[in-house]
């Protein structure tokens, strides 16, 4: 008999009503007695020596309480999770337009804003390196520790790709380029720091997703013990990977002000400031080559990618890792070479963003695959059906796939079926031959396999922790530092606690995230919250049950045998007790039913030097399919429908999973078609600093018919069977739309650069029109 479980049910989000009714408190909602309002002053140069910052005039302005510069930071001057190279307040150099040179704190926001205008700096200009190419060719080092401006390089090697390409019967060699993309969280960064009246202690509230990282930075830079830095993230109004380093830099600044003035201090960025300062998705340039046999067997794959890291290293090396090891896709190919290089420039730094280096590579790879398929006379699905990984295959990086269900073929078939891909591909290909047809239709498909959590470049430090306490009223209180960023994680954590303890869901309570109550945990990043948090929860539940069992043994004797916790009942031998009774027994014997659970992902066998082995512990399989209309008269692309099918392991909460997919499809659509920061590759400036120019898809642009498809196979490598979905939900989307547009244009792989906006599509449409005119002329000649 299958026992009823909380898992797999559409449990209502615990924060749904607070968010819907407006009672949830976001960063900028916080108002405290005696609070100072802060304003950042940004660098006026993209690259310069910072000779002096003049704050005297600002200090005399009405209401100004404090102005801080880099000099005021008592400890280390730089922060960073992996590489400590980023200024919170610039000291000797500015490296991009988002560097902050001073912060003003005043009684009102208006006063702070006015005073900030009076601050100016003396600069000695340095050459602006506004693209990886410029930076690699320059003898100027943005960071002296990286003289060639290269800050990360990752490679994958399997077989002999060079020899295999020589032998290949059909080859496609091409290149692609992607752009800066803004996270576009609706809530800009807002952080509030509150000093303790008793000791050197600061409590930080605000919109952030990695509080434990920020705690380390404040400890190092402001010289106070880690225990006296308390982070309590507010309700987060969108993140997508974006509420880490920028929020952290602002947390450092306001904490400094709070400690110096002994007053609470808040900074809330305007949208323009947020876009100016925050890190972006990496622009990547790809050179790619794929070889195959005439029968369609993929034999060789080479992918070289150059990532624009911007002014600070941030997450560039691990992003390059994912571009290199996941960019090669879910294909069964024996000979692979992939190399990703991250280059420092004077652009906005680039870091974590939903997909983390893969939406770009999937765009490049899947369009190259469509080009190859066309050359082989195969349809996109025929080629993929033949070459996608199956159970027992070895992945392109060398991972033997024998530990879970490798469902990518099934996932692809379901996505394809949802838009009737095979029939439409045939029909549209035929109808698009009509030269009079000005609005052409197309379908596209793209696949991915995404490593769950951080991967082997984080071997050894990929850990999560949780504290769970069974209270005397038999409620189960959970404190976990993995932050809710809108995905429903907290509700899922409660569902997993209920499952782990075998109790009904309403026994489980969850504390607000608070670093002073929850043990240090790796952050809510890398689509790891469910799998890693689940592992820690399962571990804590095991410990708690041992403690409760101890009470049972004390009462009923040592030979009670196996105890099962199910359906809110505790059963052993002939006994069938309520959970409440069991908790009473434990407390009656003065036991402490509280436990810290820890889960670390097992170290995988990845040889970094060779670039071969097991780059991740497990994978999520995804396929997006898109149908579009392309107007040859204007270059406009209308997305008719998208379908996203995913196998993220066990589906813990179907409604949340579908929500992730709806959002992921939309995010990919924006990246593919319209989002553009207006970055200048001469000055490194961004011109589209607000949502009037940085265009996102609106509700009217997103098809009502978009379809999420869940194809979960519980993963034996995950405690509750669930893996990852946050990033998989968006990573293949832009590629699928590109493939569809190219199909409509009758030119597989034709769009080389994102976003494919009106102008870029029109350029190809004009080529088609020119060809049509040439064909018509030659036909007329033939006739004559």
């Amino acid at each position, binding site marked *: 008999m299958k026992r009823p479980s909380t898992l797999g049910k559409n449990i209502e989000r615990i924060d749904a009503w607070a968010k819907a009714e407006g009672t949830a408190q976001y960063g900028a909602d916080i108002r405290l007695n005696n609070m100072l309002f802060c304003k950042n002053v940004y660098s006026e140069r993209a690259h310069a020596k910072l000779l002096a910052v003049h704050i005297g005039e600002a200090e005399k302005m009405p209401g100004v309480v404090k102005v801080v510069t880099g000099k005021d930071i008592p400890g280390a001057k730089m922060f960073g999770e992996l590489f400590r190279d980023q200024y919170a307040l610039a000291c000797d150099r500015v490296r991009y337009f988002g560097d902050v040179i001073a912060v003003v704190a005043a009684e009102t926001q208006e006063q702070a804003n006015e005073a900030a205008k009076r601050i100016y700096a003396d600069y000695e200009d340095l050459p602006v390196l506004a693209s990886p190419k410029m930076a690699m060719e320059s003898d100027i080092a943005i960071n002296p520790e990286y003289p060639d401006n290269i800050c990360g390089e990752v490679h994958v090697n399997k077989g002999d790709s060079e020899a295999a390409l020589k032998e290949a019967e059909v080859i496609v060699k091409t290149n692609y380029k992607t752009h800066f993309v803004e996270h576009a969280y609706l809530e800009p960064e807002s952080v509030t720091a509150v000093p303790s009246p008793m000791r050197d202690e600061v409590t930080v509230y605000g919109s952030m997703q990695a509080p434990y990282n920020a705690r380390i930075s404040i400890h190092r830079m402001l010289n106070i013990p880690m225990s006296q830095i308390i982070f309590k993230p507010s309700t987060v109004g969108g993140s997508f990977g974006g509420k880490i380093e920028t929020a952290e830099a602002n947390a450092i600044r306001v904490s400094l002000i709070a400690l110096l003035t002994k007053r609470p201090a808040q900074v809330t960025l305007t949208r323009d400031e947020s876009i100016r300062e925050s890190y972006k998705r990496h622009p990547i340039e790809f050179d790619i080559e794929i070889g195959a046999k005439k029968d369609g067997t993929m034999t060789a794959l080479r992918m070289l990618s150059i990532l624009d890291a911007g002014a600070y290293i941030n997450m560039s090396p691990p992003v390059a890792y994912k571009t290199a090891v996941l960019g090669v896709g879910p294909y069964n190919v024996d000979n692979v070479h992939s190399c990703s290089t991250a280059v420092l420039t004077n652009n906005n730094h680039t870091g974590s963003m939903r997909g983390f280096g893969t939406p770009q590579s999937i765009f490049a790879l899947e369009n190259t695959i469509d080009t190859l398929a066309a050359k082989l006379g195969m349809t996109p699905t025929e080629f993929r059906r033949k070459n996608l990984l199956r159970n027992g295959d070895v992945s392109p990086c060398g991972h033997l796939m024998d530990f879970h269900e490798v469902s990518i073929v099934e996932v692809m078939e379901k996505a394809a079926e949802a838009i009737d891909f095979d029939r439409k591909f045939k029909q549209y290909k035929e109808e698009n031959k009509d030269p009079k047809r*000005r609005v052409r239709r197309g379908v596209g498909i793209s696949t991915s396999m995404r490593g769950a959590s951080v991967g082997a470049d984080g071997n050894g430090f990929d850990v999560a922790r949780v504290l769970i306490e069974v209270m005397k009223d038999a409620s189960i209180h959970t404190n976990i530092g993995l932050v809710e960023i809108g995905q429903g994680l907290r509700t899922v954590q409660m569902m997993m606690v209920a499952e782990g303890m075998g109790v009904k869901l309403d026994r489980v309570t969850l504390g607000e995230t608070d670093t002073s109550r929850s043990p240090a945990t790796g952050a809510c990043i890398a689509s790891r919250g469910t799998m890693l948090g689940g592992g820690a929860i399962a571990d804590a539940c095991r410990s708690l049950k041992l403690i409760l069992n101890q009470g049972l043994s004390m009462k009923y004797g040592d030979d009670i045998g196996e105890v099962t916790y199910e359906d809110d009942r505790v059963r052993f031998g002939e006994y069938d007790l309520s959970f409440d009774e069991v908790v009473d027994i434990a407390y009656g014997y003065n036991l402490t039913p509280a436990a810290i659970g820890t889960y670390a992902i097992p170290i995988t066998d990845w040889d970094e030097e060779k670039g071969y082995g097991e780059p991740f512990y497990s994978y999520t399989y995804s396929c997006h399919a898109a149908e579009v209309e392309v107007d040859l008269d204007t270059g406009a692309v209308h997305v008719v429908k998208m379908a996203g099918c995913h196998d993220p392991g066990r589906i813990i909460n179907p409604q949340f999973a579908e929500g992730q997919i709806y959002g992921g499809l939309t995010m990919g659509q924006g990246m593919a078609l*319209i989002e553009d920061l207006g970055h200048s590759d001469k000055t490194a400036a961004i011109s589209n600093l607000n949502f009037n120019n940085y265009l996102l898809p609106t509700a*009217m642009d997103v098809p009502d018919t978009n379809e999420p498809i869940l194809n979960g196979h519980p993963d034996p490598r995950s405690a509750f069977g669930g893996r990852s979905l946050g990033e998989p939900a968006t990573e293949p989307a832009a590629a699928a739309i590109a493939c569809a547009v190219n199909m409509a244009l009758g030119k597989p792989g034709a769009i080389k650069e994102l976003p494919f906006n*009106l102008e870029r599509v029109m350029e190809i449409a004009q080529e088609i029109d020119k060809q049509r005119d040439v064909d018509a002329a030659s036909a007329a000649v033939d006739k004559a």
Partner: protein
Amino acid sequence: MKIRNYIQVKTVEAFHEAAKAADGPITILAGGTDVLVNGREDDVYKDCTVIDIFPVEALHGVCETENMLLIGACTTHEAISHDPLVKQYAPILAEACGAVGSLQTRNRATIGGNLANASPAADTMSALAVLHAELVIERDGEARVEPMTAIFTKPYKTNLAQNDLITTIRVPKQSPNVRYDYVKVGRRKVLSISRMTVATLLEMDNNGVVTRFDMTVGATFPRPMLFPDISAMLVGKRPSEQDIIGVAKALSDKIPEIAGIRKSTIYKQPVCRNISERSLRKLFADILK
């Protein structure tokens, strides 16, 4: 947003008084969708007396005379897009007003404000141009009438004096035989600044001979324009496929001619030609058969 002074008026007369009394520059606030955005962070209005005319009832709504629609300058785009008189006598304007921004914007933004702001990308301008709309402008209580296209000097600049108030947009009523087409090209479906608009208005006699023809492009030239030479290409003719191709080419050739060759010309010129052809084929579908 910093301003020198804020005055709300309820009548046109009160506006004139306030304008006369104002010391220094005046900014007229209608729907606020431009003024509030421009003034958000910068100090552009800090020396200005802001006169809020939105509450002036006489400036809201549409009425008719025998030959004209009279549209109050403070009538919102949303109101115009649903107004029965506009839909009957100038449907191209209803369509153009419906293409503006989002519902929220259309509910605030006014047609008079849209004209006075003089953005070359204003969605209504190409439609008002082909309708040969006129503006009633009042200064110190004295009214004058000017063709709509005459007030613009360059992008975001008009020849209106600071105490000039656009009170009414006069739109000649169109007969039911008039055919029209309005096309907007934007980067997304709503909340989109036009990349280009193409507005066409024409009338034919019973034999399919064109008696009146106006076609123009918006969001492309520094100010709204009409082209007598383009009109002349079809008037008096029963158009053929070749005529349509000719008109579309001539209209799109105006882009480099007037606006100069810019980065955007590569896109705009062929798109103008394509959508002009498409519009004309649609309008003359029965004639071309």
